[in-house]
């Protein structure tokens, strides 16, 4: 481990981002913190005061269709050789990004200071995604049947 831990905090909505950057800096005052922000993001003076470096991603939004851009984002995350990769939501995409960053520690930090460790195991993200998607599809078809096969008789206004 290097003398100075390298931490990357991946951007989320501004209010949450500010708070988590502040929390990270308070808990790890000597770490080298990088804020990874979307292209064109206007970082505030408060945010700047807690980080050592700012890295802009290629785009401000990533869609499922443009897988190439997402791979370039993964490359960007790996290029930083971070010791710890922090995301603010434990969504599937954030899990993949954190897991693929190569960081030894991957975490999701919530606003109340709760830290959820994320698995770095190569298969954990796709397995979890598959499980979520399987359960999600069951839910969807259940809801679809309810919506399309069971009509609701609206109440007349009094």
């Amino acid at each position, binding site marked *: 481990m290097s003398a100075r831990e390298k931490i990357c905090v991946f951007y989320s909505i501004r209010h949450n981002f500010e708070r988590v950057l502040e929390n990270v800096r308070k808990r790890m005052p000597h770490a080298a913190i990088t804020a990874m922000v979307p292209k064109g993001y206007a970082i505030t003076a408060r945010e700047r005061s807690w980080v050592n470096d700012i890295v802009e991603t290629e785009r401000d939004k990533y869609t499922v269709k443009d897988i190439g851009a997402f791979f370039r984002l993964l490359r960007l995350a790996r290029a930083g050789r971070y010791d710890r990769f922090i995301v603010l939501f434990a969504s599937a995409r954030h899990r993949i990004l954190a897991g693929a960053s190569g960081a030894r520690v991957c975490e999701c930090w919530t606003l109340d200071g709760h830290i959820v460790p994320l698995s770095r195991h190569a298969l954990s993200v796709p397995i979890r995604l598959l499980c979520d998607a399987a359960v999600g599809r069951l839910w969807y078809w259940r809801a679809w049947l309810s919506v399309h096969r069971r009509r609701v008789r*609206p109440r007349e206004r009094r």
Partner: protein
Amino acid sequence: MRLAFVDLVFTWPPAGGAPLDLYHTAKGLQQLGHDVHLFFAHDTRNWGIDTVAQDKLPFPSTGLDFTPATYTPANVPGAFREVVDAWRPDVVFICFGFFMKPFVIEALAHYPTVSRYYAYEPACPRDYRIFKNDNTCPNNYLTTPDACRKCMLDFFAMDIRRGAQVAYTRELLATRAYAPSYYERCLRALDTLDAAIVYNHIGKAHLEGFHDNVLVVPGGVNADEFPATPPPVRGGDDKAIILMTGRATDPSKGFGIVLDVGEALYKERQDFQIWVTYPDGKHDSEWLKAIGWLDNAHIAPYYQQADICVVPSFWEEPFGIVAVEAMATGRPVCVSRVGGLQEIVVHGETGFIHDRFDREALKRHLAALLDSPDLRRRMGEAGRRRVVEHYDWRRVIETHYPPLLESLAP
């Protein structure tokens, strides 16, 4: 009286208008001599929201801890019923909440209950702003449940199929809000309420015929926090400032219209600058300055520096607090004919109202105000008077709540 406030997504410091409204209502009623207690769902992991700073609230509060796994109809209504029963209120105000709210209303139906709606929650399970394809959706879940269920399912299909990553979708599934039984539950919940409070007459129209006691109660501001100041005296190269505040990054707030109108107006005259609470540096030009996000505590000096305020929202703003703040400071406002904004502003007296998307009209109104410092001053003074008479929190509470509580007294 002992008044319980129940909120399912409360935040403090406030992350929106709903908690701010609850805070001022509860505090105002406490100042009228009532015992007030807030019960809220403490659910930071589900919603990604901050912990509630209970020590900063002027009234006692109790947070009920939930996680995404425990935020279900099997747990939430019972948990609220237990703590509220222990406190024994005379009246329960059920405040902000989404799909879980009808369950909680039913669980507390043994009290006189009042439901406060902060947008158009009963009318749309997909988007409580009733905003679809950049316009107001004509449907109403209470009258067109099947169309609304389909619309909701289509909208959330991707997230549901991915395993419901978003808190709103999780709540939708946990409460089975897609099912016919949920529609029945919503109606039952409305039937059990003693009163429903909405912000404007559009909200009232949604509920008409489904509930007999729907009250229109506006929000408010503390007029003292937005003191009336004389309009800036401009001379020489000193440019008039047109201010747009609020969440300018939200497309439904109409920043796009301000860009179009500002550009067109600047071709004709260069005696103004538009300031917008947009992230710093974005879109800056000769006539446009992004001043970054400003919260409630830091906005007043900007109103004081401004000459005119503009609120060009596309969606049916339930209330429109930024217009009231500007009027309180004594500034004329140009607003779109939507939701509560058209009820707050008196056209030609405290400002101008233009039809939604009508760029020409907004440009005309801004030009008229830029041309006449006297008109700006007169409208600003009339706006201040209107706020003091109708929208000061003290006045809002004293006007609307004592008659309501009297009617609910045991």
